């Protein structure tokens, strides 16, 4: 299996994630888009590990860390979103711009 394909897939997922982050108003969907980006990273890591036949398995371990931390981040992120929702009854990101300039 050519590694190019895998890499292309990950680049694609990564870009789609970026689009989601930039275009979606709902904070939760933005979080989901970021998860997609992180998964793109994981695909890379694991694929490279397989490609290089690397014995220390750093790629896979790295991926494990990413998954774990992504989950933790998501927890905090959702807490923040809920906090905002509680105060303003909206989770639209572009309405959150009290502070500027």
């Amino acid at each position, binding site marked *: 299996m*050519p590694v190019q394909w*895998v890499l292309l897939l990950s680049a694609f997922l990564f870009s789609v994630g970026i689009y989601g982050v*930039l275009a979606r108003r709902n904070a*939760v969907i933005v*979080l989901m*888009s970021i998860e*997609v980006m992180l998964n793109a990273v994981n695909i890379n890591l694991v694929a490279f590990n397989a*490609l290089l036949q690397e014995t220390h398995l750093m790629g896979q*371990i790295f991926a494990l860390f990413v998954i774990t931390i992504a989950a933790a981040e998501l927890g905090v992120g959702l807490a923040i979103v809920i906090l905002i929702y509680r105060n303003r009854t909206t989770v639209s990101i572009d309405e959150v711009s009290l502070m500027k300039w």
Partner: protein
Amino acid sequence: MTPWVFIGVAVVMSIAAIRLVTTKNLVHGALYLVVTLMGVAVVFLLTAAEFVAWVQVLIYVGAVIVLLLFGLMLTKAPIGRTALDNDRRGFAALVALGIFAVTGTVLWTSFEGKEIQVGHSVTTEQLGTELFTRFVLPFEVVSVLLLAALVGAVILAKRD
């Protein structure tokens, strides 16, 4: 056979990902995310990372999606295109396309002709050994991190 499986999974994942960022229905979006994440797990399996694939399924599909669904419900997200997208979609698409073009080109041309040899799968034991010797420190740090995240999420989310 593997390449064909991969292509099939990749196509499904891509479509799901696109739907995720374009759907009008938030809950549908979460379901598309499930599809994408499952696809990633399949890719892991295809690239000899069995343990990571199961972790992916367990943590992402099992925990994260549920968490996200809770999040969606708690914030009573509105449904409908105007509410879900901001007015810079074209711009965002342009940016995303640009990034994809740049990274895609570089990666495609740089890794020309390299094949992934899917030989023996990595055993969990191997992985565990590495994790608890060489990477024990990050591991421990992550545990503190999880603790901090836990505490943090709780104090942020709880009502005073």
